[in-house]
């Protein structure tokens, strides 16, 4: 077998392997997660870039004699398609993710809120803005701590670093601006939360259950 035919077979095999990777990458893009699918994209770009590179290396120039090249001369054949696939794929995925950035970052927040045992419910207000509500049977200060770790785990940032708490009677409440990640972009949100005070409370505790501590996360203006 001559080297050219071997290289064409390699290109076909690598192309098939790359094609097998694409469904996984598509699933990564479609699933409602806020992280950018770097591993899938890099894997697909590397193997498809290698397949295209092998093809170009074998068949370039299309007419005329193809010289025997050493590895330095053949490197651009592999690097250029790989970089083009990486950049083009990143741009394409970013455009897809930007279209539903609010939903992605809200979903990421809900996921990490569940990790700290906050229950997510739908927003009561029929507002057009993206919004989510979480609640838990805890006191207000603990709700703020749990929200802080939920935001940090979702890859978000809180303006001012910590969640402020204002006490009014036997309740604490607060409002903060947070930015959540959606792919490569940052989406601004407003986080409002309030909850009962249990430790250091003036009034006595009721026999029935206390009102739940709850928070709403609403899309803010850019």
């Amino acid at each position, binding site marked *: *077998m*001559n*080297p050219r035919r071997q290289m064409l077979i390699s290109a076909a095999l690598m192309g098939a392997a790359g094609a097998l990777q694409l469904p996984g990458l598509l699933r990564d893009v479609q699933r409602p997660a806020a992280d950018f699918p770097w591993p899938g994209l890099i894997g697909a770009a590397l193997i498809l870039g290698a397949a295209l590179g092998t093809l170009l290396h074998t068949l370039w120039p299309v007419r005329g004699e193809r010289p025997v090249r*050493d*590895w*330095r001369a053949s490197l651009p054949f592999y690097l250029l398609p790989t970089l083009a696939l990486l950049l083009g794929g990143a741009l394409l995925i970013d455009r897809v993710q930007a279209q539903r950035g609010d939903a992605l970052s809200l979903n990421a927040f809900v996921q990490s809120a569940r*990790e*700290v*045992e906050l229950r997510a419910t739908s927003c009561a207000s029929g507002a057009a803005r993206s919004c989510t509500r979480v609640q838990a*049977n*805890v*006191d*207000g*200060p*603990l709700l*703020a*701590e749990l929200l802080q770790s939920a935001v940090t785990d979702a890859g978000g940032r809180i303006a001012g670093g910590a969640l402020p708490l204002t006490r009014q009677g036997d309740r604490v409440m607060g409002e903060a601006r947070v930015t959540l990640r959606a792919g490569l972009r940052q989406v601004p949100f407003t986080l409002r939360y309030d909850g009962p005070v*249990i*430790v*250091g*409370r003036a*009034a*006595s*505790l009721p*026999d029935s259950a*206390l009102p739940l501590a709850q928070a709403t996360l609403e899309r803010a203006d850019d």
Partner: protein
Amino acid sequence: MTERALTPAREDGPQFRPRPGPLRLTLLLQGVFLLGMLTGLAVLVVSSPLSRLADRVVALFPWWFLVQALSFGAYAHAYWGAFGTLGKAAAPLQLWRHPELRTLPALPPLPLWRAALLYAVPVALVGGMFAWGSRDLGAQVARYTTNSQWTSAARLGFTRVSCRDFPAGRVQPDSLCLVAWQDFPQGRSFADTVRAWVQGERLTFTDAGQPVEAPALNLPFRQAGGVTGGQWTVPLRRITEDDTHPFTVTAVSRRDPAPESGAAPAPDLASWLRGQAFHSVLIVTPGASSPGVTAP
């Protein structure tokens, strides 16, 4: 097909054979990898998924990446210097199909530092992968453990609160602070509720049916100054692990007044509790507390 027989004799055929030692090492490592993986997969197929054996096999899985990394290093060592030119050194399959190629001169030996680098780079990559994979797992395990302890205590009538207003010295940043102000379910006393919670956190879950109950601990409750309670270091279950870890459990209540017995449990906590609207606290802190605590 006629070409194949001609290949070794042709002018542009391979001029070298790979360095024999590293090539043998590559083949050996690939054989170890293949046999080990197949054995492991066979064990996983026939064993039950939660058994210790399956656990060990799964725990072994990342180390196969290390075997592969060493194998890549050995392959690079065997062929370094011939990678740039297609067909300069005979490939393993060529050597297998054409034994006469094995008489070609071997590639010249590499300087030691370069050979070491060829092994070090893939091993370092796998090491980076390990480091990335094990990042923050401790925090994750601690959080899931805290969540599970919270859930089971909530079922017994406790409510989780922030630890920030608790007396300093009694809580750590990773403590779980629970309070109760209503009657406990089934009319249990505070001491029975805490004992039930500790027993619940000492269950072992296996795939062999019902969870296994650990032998009951002797948790002495002392009464003095209108409160009942105590502080103990108890071994509790941690999520994702087989074994138990010591946790410091502090329980104080002013709900069940009883005749005094011994010294007051946690006096600072007791006086603080008298000013609160709830009647019971339960504090769970990972790690053993200072010596002098009654450890069962």
